[in-house]
């Protein structure tokens, strides 16, 4: 049986249950998504954007789904402790794909005009907040993961920051995976920053059980005029976890956005990030750091679409691959006709530490305007012998010297994190990770892959 078939059958059999436990705004696109999924199926590796990840194989195993929205017997506020010290955040949880609002201790107070809530609840209570945006960027006809997610997603996260509101404290969303059987979670995220709004958002993925998890996440992010968004996504799960995340960002004029992807431990991770610069003078910075070992597979696929003149984009992705890890980076920068005065820089640097680690790097420039400054660079290599020698000469043992160099290598990405406490914490986590120690938050489930 082809891997698509089980999802098609699942949807056909449970269409009513899925719709009953969701909101009309979400249900409205389901049927079309289903048809798109049926006609397209999972992309094969012949498709340029899925060249490095076998999607059908990842979706082939049988996972359970919580279509009836049974509540998960866990209070993450008690069970989970995020150990980023000194980071004062407004903390929210999404358990699997449900926004958690059970027994909440210290519900954070937010300024007026800021809504952080369950997507399906907001879509029922205020459809006018959701309908104009939902499915507008993540079209189901464009991508099979979008189609599958739109077809099955029942809930997720909704964030709205009203015009000119500045969210003073960073918001932290913790996606907790918790189940007693292998589970598939389809999470949907909608973030709308109205003109002039500002927010820092930290999203962490954690697994509280060592079961296999398969997550699809589709996030649509709208950054209004003069708005400013910093989005940090940190993945710290385990080897049995598979994640497909599609993040779509649309930026209006004069807006600034930062998107950080930090993958420390996972099984198979595929992040697709599409950024559309649709207003002049918009600026996007994208950073990514991947530290992978074992048989981890991390594939970052990005597209920055410069549609109008005077926009800037900057991209930096760094990978450190150990053991049998496979890393892939494909970054496409598209400068459309008329998008003059575009400035775009893209860098991908990679370290392969073992022979069996494999890196694919594919930075791409597609340019249809002449008055632009665009560049990209990409390297695959190993640690600098001269630097190693220098350190050893000064009495630093070779292992320690290697570690320092690796650390400095990733440090370039981490130094761009503007949340000081998070940056310090990540420095610490990455260092522990390189030392082969427990490189994860205390809240996660220990698994066999963690090197204790």
């Amino acid at each position, binding site marked *: 049986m082809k891997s698509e078939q089980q999802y098609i059958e699942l949807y056909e059999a449970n269409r009513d249950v899925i719709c009953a436990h969701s909101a009309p705004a979400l249900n409205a696109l389901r049927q079309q998504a289903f048809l798109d999924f049926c006609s397209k199926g999972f992309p094969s590796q012949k498709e*340029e954007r899925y060249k490095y990840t076998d999607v059908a194989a990842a979706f082939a195993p049988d996972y359970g789904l919580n279509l009836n929205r049974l509540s998960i017997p866990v209070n993450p506020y008690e069970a989970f402790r995020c150990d980023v010290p000194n980071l004062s955040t407004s903390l929210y949880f999404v358990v699997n794909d449900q926004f958690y609002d059970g027994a909440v201790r210290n519900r954070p107070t937010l300024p007026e005009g800021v809504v952080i809530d369950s997507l399906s609840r907001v879509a029922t209570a205020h459809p006018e907040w959701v309908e104009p945006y939902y499915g507008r960027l993540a079209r189901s006809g464009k991508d099979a993961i979008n189609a599958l997610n739109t077809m099955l997603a029942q809930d997720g996260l909704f964030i709205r920051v009203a015009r000119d509101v500045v969210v003073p404290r960073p918001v932290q969303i913790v996606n907790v995976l918790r189940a007693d059987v292998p589970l598939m979670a389809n999470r949907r995220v909608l973030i709308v920053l109205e003109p002039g709004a500002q927010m820092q958002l930290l999203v962490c993925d954690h697994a509280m059980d060592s079961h296999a998890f398969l997550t699809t996440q589709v996030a649509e992010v709208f950054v209004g005029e003069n708005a400013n968004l910093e989005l940090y996504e940190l993945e710290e799960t385990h080897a049995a976890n598979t994640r497909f995340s599609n993040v779509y960002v649309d930026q209006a004029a004069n807006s600034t956005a930062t998107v950080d992807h930090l993958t420390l431990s996972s099984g198979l991770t595929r992040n697709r990030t599409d950024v559309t610069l649709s207003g002049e003078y918009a600026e996007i910075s994208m950073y990514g750091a991947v530290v992978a070992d074992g048989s981890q597979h991390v594939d970052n696929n990005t597209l920055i679409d410069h549609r109008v003149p005077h926009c800037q984009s900057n991209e930096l992705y760094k990978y450190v691959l150990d053991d049998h890890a496979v890393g892939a980076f494909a970054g496409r920068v598209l400068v459309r*006709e*008329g998008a*003059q005065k575009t400035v775009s820089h893209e860098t991908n640097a*990679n370290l*392969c*530490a*073992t*022979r*069996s*680690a*494999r*890196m*694919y*790097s*594919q*930075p*791409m*420039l*597609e*340019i*249809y*305007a*002449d*008055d*632009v*400054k*665009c*560049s*990209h*660079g*990409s*390297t*695959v*290599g*190993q640690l600098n012998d001269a630097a190693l020698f220098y350190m050893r000469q000064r009495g630093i043992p070779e292992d320690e010297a290697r570690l320092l160099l690796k650390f400095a290598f990733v440090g370039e990405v981490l130094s761009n994190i503007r949340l000081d406490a998070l940056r310090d914490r990540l420095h610490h986590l990455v260092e522990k990770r390189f030392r082969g120690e427990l490189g994860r938050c205390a809240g996660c489930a220990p698994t066999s892959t963690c090197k204790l």
Partner: protein
Amino acid sequence: MMEERRNSFVREVAEKKYEYGFTTDVHTEIIEKGLSEEVVRLISQKKGEPDWLLQFRLEAFRYWQTLEPPTWGHLQMPSVDFQDISYYADPTKKPSQGDAKGEIDPELMKTFDKLGIPLEERLALSGTAVDAVMDSVSVKTTFREKLREKGIIFCSISEAVREHPDLVREYLGSVVPYRDNFYAALNSAVFSDGSFVYIPRGVRCPMELSTYFRINARGTGQFERTLIVCCDDAYVSYLEGCTAPMRDENQLHAAIVEIVVMENAEVKYSTVQNWYPGDAEGRGGVLNLVTKRGHLRGVNSRLSWTQVETGSAITWKYPSCVLSGDGSQAEFYSVAVTNNHQQADTGTKMIHLGRNTRSTIISKGISAGRSQNSYRGLVKVGSKADGARNYSSCDSLLLGDTCGAHTFPYMDVQNETAVAEHEATTSKISEDQLFYCNQRGISTEDAVGLIVNGYAKDVLNKLPMEFAVEAQKLLGVSLEGSVG
């Protein structure tokens, strides 16, 4: 005022005639259009080929029938009706006599004279031996005797099949098998003339070898096949040039070049490609769909591809190197110029298999008019290629706001001791540079020529001298006045 001048340059260039666009009125024997097993057999029979080669062609043809044309290039490819092309055209056949080889039609001699390729040895530049190929047949190969004294074989591939069948059989298809891709399969089925070069052990070829390809007949395609074998400690520099008449139809050119480089041997392969690019509205022009590959088999072998691509409506070409010999070195230098509606998707593949292999890629793209120019390259380092090293640099220059420049590099590294680097930039000629030149009394078009030549210098310097002069002129002609 400035604007007006600019426009007049553009008009001038747009109206400029393609210098090599004339046709030769010579009787040409053309077989019926269409492609079938019978046609493949007929080509083989016309060339008097042995059975093994016919079988090779037939296998390739049968495999080709199972394939679809590739669509992954960044190209708007017109659909090609493969049944509407004649696969064999012989301008050397006289209507009355049967075979009258040896005596060349004066019209043909004139044609090549006009192209600047004199076929009479006394007139030729002393340093270059030429194999002149028109449509499907090699017209003449010069300096053969002189080369033979050193043991060098330089002849058309049809002759090589007759005279050195063992050599051809050993190497043909060993670098580019017919299963490689759609156009390689097509070429393997219907290939006609091209050059065969064999440099024996320890011989340094005393002169540049070159092939000049010319498409003349209407409704035909050219499917040449070139095979170069350079034995241990040998050296050869090989040049290739090509032109075609102006026609309002697209003509197909699907060639294969195979190069085998043995221990400590060195091959330099230079191309100045100037097929008819189509008119300013994008009508006609040659579809240049070529598979070129070198296999660096021996220890410390060296191969260098240098290409100047100015012609063709569509270029789909990736001269590649398979570096299997330990310590082998490969280089790829390319200048690709596109103007009007031309499209180019070109680059290279460097496949590192041996230890301590090195490769360098320098690619310079220049786009003007409404053209699209893409670099596509692969650097692959296998798990046994310890100490492999690659450096790639791809620059694009945009002249005008309606053209496109694209870069699609692929890197696939499986060895922890390998180092691969890639960098690319895209920019236009800055107003400051132009102003600086203008201020010193250099006109805008001269300034552009100067800047473009400076930009392409890294590559042009790698060309043999006569070619470099030619290439520089070509760059000037292709781009004059197209600065926006």
